[in-house]
């Protein structure tokens, strides 16, 4: 063993771009930890965690004050602009950047403030949108709802459009302010439409539009917690389920107090899932969870993979979207079925990778995988397999990280600061081709590396039959592939067995709940505070067999979504 390590050490250093510097590499790509003050809570938190997650230091970390203002993400802004101003509105691209944390723009962006450049971009975007509305008479009439030359039109517009933009009825002050603004502008330009236009810009540039407000009120049922108001709940639900703000009907129900109780929320949420926006809105969650956008933005080494064009990566991301849509929405199956579905979505480009016949017309069609097809579900897609590879080689570490972070909610720490980067020199190893497993051996034998890499490498190594584009390969450049892996210290072989383990692991089930919770609330759970609620939700998730349309009403009507702990 000692000799093996010696012999392979040097080669590991030389060949494996991602393997050198001992264990630092590939682990660096892991978004680390939670935002300051919300540390911990992200080892997978379950009793099954074998340690090594990110629980260290959790105990000392004081819970952060719950964020009360969450800036709209770009996606939320764009979808809300379309909702307010109609299909075909061109959403400005120069919008403030989102931040991403724990895979989610909703979590990262909640922590952002809006500074100088951002304010400028939002003001510019509001003017751009209002200009577009005014330039198109049909759109203008639809959005404004009255003839500006009528004396009451401005106030009527501020009242109705303002309510949709602010996601609540305006206060008298606010209504007065925007009516006065519009009146002044109309007078100055001697054009009542200019008054409407100016008021619209202001409403769309207001912090009441740009932030989701989660201030809350005292909770009569629990003096230690606050609950979001019925009106705040409308926005929480709408942005989660629809990806945009509430419509008039939802605001009516919210202002009537229907969303002050859990039962009311569950009932409304169930109806909201039938809304045409629900697939796109919830689809955003799946996209961010699975990294669909990143799949589409990949590039590989064209000298090695000439077929790896932007169009191929677009096909890969489309397959992931179609798979989610099919399993979760069309079939109403458990979210867990995403792991082992036998349905693939294939066009000619993907067929070439999957070794399937071309579909002929270039469109993407659903295909049932053969029983002897070694692929299954999400992990079997070219999208996930290539996303977790380098430009010209596989990266078992990245594949393992993907599984641990996305499906088991294990947060992996960055490499230790005292990592030993000196790897023994062994010229005898020069020139001998080695498998990825051999190259990665240093991760296994060096204790400094093994603490983390033992969590990830053994998962990824089992997928070595899939090349950097996700195509099956019988061997690795002529070398025999050993597809054995370790899942929680249990040996297994290949993708099918890994998927089977994930499919039946309660940690995976609980992780899906966590992922939904994080995206929905824009908040990474604090174990001591949110842990019990999440555990309870995991039980519900199991009871409804992971069915999203049954689970979502339970999630949003739970205390974890409707209320939050008071922090002094």
């Amino acid at each position, binding site marked *: 063993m000692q000799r093996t390590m010696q012999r392979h050490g040097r080669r590991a250093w030389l060949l494996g771009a991602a393997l050198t510097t001992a264990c630092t590499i590939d682990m660096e790509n892991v978004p680390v930890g939670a935002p300051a003050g919300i540390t911990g809570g992200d080892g997978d938190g379950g009793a099954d965690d074998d340690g090594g997650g990110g629980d260290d230091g959790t105990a000392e970390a004081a819970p952060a004050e719950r964020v009360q203002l969450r800036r709209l993400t770009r996606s939320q802004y764009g979808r809300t602009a379309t909702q307010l101003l109609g299909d075909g509105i061109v959403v400005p691209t120069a919008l403030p950047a989102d931040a991403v944390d724990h895979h989610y723009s909703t979590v990262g962006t909640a922590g952002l403030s809006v500074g100088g450049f951002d304010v400028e971009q939002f003001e510019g975007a509001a003017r751009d949108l209002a200009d577009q509305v005014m330039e198109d008479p049909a759109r203008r009439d639809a959005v404004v709802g009255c003839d500006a030359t009528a004396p009451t039109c401005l106030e009527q517009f501020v009242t109705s459009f303002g309510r949709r933009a602010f996601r609540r009825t305006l206060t008298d002050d606010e209504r007065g302010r925007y009516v006065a603004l519009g009146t002044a502008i109309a007078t100055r330009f001697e054009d009542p439409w200019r008054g409407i236009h100016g008021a619209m810009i202001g409403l769309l540039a207001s912090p009441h539009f740009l932030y989701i407000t989660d201030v809350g009120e005292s909770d009569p049922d629990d003096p230690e917690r606050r609950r979001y108001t019925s009106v705040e709940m409308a926005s929480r639900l709408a942005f989660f389920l629809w990806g945009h703000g509430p419509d008039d009907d939802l605001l009516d129900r919210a202002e009537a107090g229907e969303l002050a109780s859990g039962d009311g929320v569950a009932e409304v949420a169930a109806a909201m899932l039938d809304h045409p926006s629900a697939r796109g809105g919830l689809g955003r969650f799946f996209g961010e969870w699975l990294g669909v956008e990143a799949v589409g933005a990949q590039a590989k080494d064209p000298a090695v993979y000439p077929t790896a064009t932007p169009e191929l990566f677009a096909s890969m991301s489309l397959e992931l979207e179609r798979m989610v849509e099919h399993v979760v929405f069309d079939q109403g199956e458990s979210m867990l079925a995403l792991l082992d579905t036998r349905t693939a979505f294939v066009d000619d480009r993907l067929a070439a990778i999957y070794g399937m016949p071309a579909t002929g017309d270039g469109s993407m069609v659903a295909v049932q995988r053969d029983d002897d097809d070694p692929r299954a579900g999400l992990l079997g897609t070219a999208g996930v397999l290539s996303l977790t590879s380098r430009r010209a080689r596989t990266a078992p570490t990245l594949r393992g990280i993907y599984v641990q972070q996305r499906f088991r909610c294990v947060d992996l720490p960055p490499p230790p600061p005292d*990592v030993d980067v000196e790897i023994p020199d062994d010229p005898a190893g020069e020139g001998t081709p080695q498998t990825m497993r051999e190259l990665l051996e240093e991760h296994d034998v060096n204790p400094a590396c093994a603490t983390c890499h033992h969590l990830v490498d053994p998962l990824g190594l089992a997928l070595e039959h899939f090349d950097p584009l996700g195509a099956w390969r019988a061997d690795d450049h002529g070398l025999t592939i050993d597809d054995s892996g370790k899942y929680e210290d249990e040996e297994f072989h290949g993708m099918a067995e890994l998927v089977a383990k994930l499919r039946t692991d309660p940690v995976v089930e609980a992780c899906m709940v966590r992922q939904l919770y994080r995206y929905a609330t824009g908040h990474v759970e604090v174990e001591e505070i949110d842990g019990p609620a999440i555990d309870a939700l995991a039980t519900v998730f199991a009871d409804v067999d992971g069915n999203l349309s049954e689970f979502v009403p339970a999630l949003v009507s739970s205390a974890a979504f409707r209320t939050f702990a008071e922090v002094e």
Partner: protein
Amino acid sequence: MTIGRRRFLRGVLGGVGCAVGLPALEAMLNGNGNAYASGEALPLRFGTWYFGNGVPGEAWAPAQTGPDWMPTSCLQALADPIIKPYVSIISGTDLGVGFGDHITSRAVAFSGATTAPTGGQADAATTMPSCDQIAADLLGATSTFRSLELGVSRAYIMGGGNDEFSIAMKDGQLLPAEFSPKALFDRLFLGFSPDTRELDTRIGILDAVKADADSLRARLGAADRAKLDAHLGGLGELETRLLTEPPTCSVPMAPVDPLDDGANEPLSARSRLIVDVLVQAIACDLVRVFSVRFSQAIADVLFWEAGVNEGSHTLTHDPSKRQMYIDSVAFSMEQFAYLLQRLAAVTEGEATLLDRCAIYCTSDLADGQTHTVTDYPVVVAGRAGGALKSGEHIAAAGKRTSVVPYTLLKAIGVQATSFGDATYGATEVLPELAV
């Protein structure tokens, strides 16, 4: 600066896209060209230029110290005889963090302070401001734009989403960066409205928005109040800018963004266009402080123009591709050199813009292969109007890296007695660099 520029423009042109002749400030200078006619000193400028993933140590620092340094493979571009006298290579400093993890070390390199590693990129910063933002407090207060944050490569950390943040840090956050030369141009040169009614309308709208922000602020806890304070500050800045007079210099040709097919980023084209717009903006005195994020830490930037076929982060860790690493950094330095060349080409009175700049160029690691942070790679350019020595290779072994940005800040007149925190910061300047 009391010339009524807006009045002038309204009278003469009455429209957007105003033009007066370059050089912008010539008409306002005194007879010697070393100050404004009013006696006010010509402005100093401060910039940072950042490239990710460190350098190949053996091909970075010159063998010779002093003014006669011979360029290494990485530094060839800086040996251009026009800019070399303005360039100082500072080797041997120690960032002080022991082991570089890219993100924390990057924050320390620019702020002299640490951060706890956090999740999203936006908060992967320190609670202390980066040196450029300290400079902006001084120099940016009287310019139209307080500072500009710019980016060239958009390649991001896998799994990290879009990374559109600069390396400038303020209020505990990374500031957003502009990556489009065209959008930058529009923002700088076309954002002025010469029509009084339009201008008053925008101000009126911003006032209403501010009133909304004020009333919302009252309902919030401390953390979110701070968030809204930043928002209010941004609204105030925008109002102030709208009320500022538009540039008197000629508006240059609007750039066209280079095509980005997603596979090969147009790095040199985008970098040069951004520099062209930036230098015009500096020449017009629209801005005095800038930070450029040329390439991102950990990102697998593909330096295809340098003949490289592997992402930059991956190749830093592949010793068999060491030459590609060298070529990538040499390519990055070419882009930095272009900035210096452009600044040197603009005369401002008796000197050039580069004479009045203090530019700090560094990375997030020393050697990207081993993640070292000793013998940190630092280049300084410009003379800060005579307050900086230049043209030498300074071996500064035993010094903290943060002495360099501190020296530059002192050179432009920042009155602080320290920079950064007690562990990684500086309280003394680098004597070989300061005049």
